[in-house]
């Protein structure tokens, strides 16, 4: 089982409690689609993803970005049982959505960068390390049901 230090627990709770889900979610997914355009392969029915402006203004991208972030919130509330928290979503991504699990790291990196730009100096190296550890465990939980 993953061991969390007091600092890591407190940091994750703090970062997510201060987060504006309504804007961080859409921006994270948008950046992923812009910076790593091959990820657009999973969003064929989202309409116009032609350029950065189109992606940032796309309501389906925004909605889905929020969905993803709210799902992370569940993980924040269940840090000691991420494996079970994400079991169902893991099956969904593997069997129905057929998403290459390497993509999970890409969107994690985008989230880290969005949080960094929001928090500025408060996003120290230690805070970054804690967030990246949390996201890595979430990603690992999402990879578990791929066979």
């Amino acid at each position, binding site marked *: 089982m993953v061991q969390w230090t007091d600092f890591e627990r407190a940091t994750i709770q703090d970062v997510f409690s201060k987060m504006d889900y309504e804007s961080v979610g859409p921006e994270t997914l948008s950046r992923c689609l*812009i910076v790593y355009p091959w990820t657009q392969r999973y969003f064929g029915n989202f309409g116009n993803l032609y350029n950065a402006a189109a992606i940032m203004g796309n309501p389906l991208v925004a909605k889905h970005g929020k969905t993803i972030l709210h799902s992370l919130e569940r993980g924040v509330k269940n840090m000691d049982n991420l494996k079970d928290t994400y079991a169902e979503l893991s099956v969904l991504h593997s069997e129905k959505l057929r998403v290459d699990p390497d993509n999970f790291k890409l969107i994690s990196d985008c989230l880290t960068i969005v949080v960094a730009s929001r928090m500025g100096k408060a996003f120290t190296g230690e805070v970054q*390390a804690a967030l990246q550890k949390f996201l890595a465990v979430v990603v690992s939980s999402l990879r578990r049901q791929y066979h």
Partner: protein
Amino acid sequence: MLSKKQKELIAEIWASLTPVAEDIGADALGRMFASYPGTKTYFSHLDISPRSAHLLSHGRKIVLAIAEGARDIGQLTVTLAPLQTLHAYQLRIDPANFKLFSHCVLVALACHMGDDFTPDAHAAMDKYMSAFAAVLSEKYR
């Protein structure tokens, strides 16, 4: 492939960061050491505590090299030739670490630039850092 617009954006950003090269560089290195402790193994000869003289000086060196490359991206292989040799034959840093450092540079930029680190800037910068790392590893084998 970097477009003309992306090259201009990258050159512009790095030119504006040259005055704070040591801050950005030290910040990126510090983040890398915090998130990826294995990278510290390459620095046993330096004092890498936060904002140490060594860290600031080393961070400055790296950022100035990245900024120089950004001035004429088409000539990266020429500009980086000496550093290619250094990394391949002397430093022999596993190139997988270049990815880790590049990510921390992007995070440092995001912290420093806030909203100015737009998705377009992020995309261009990510591509540039990948190209930089690829050229740097060219002489390894």
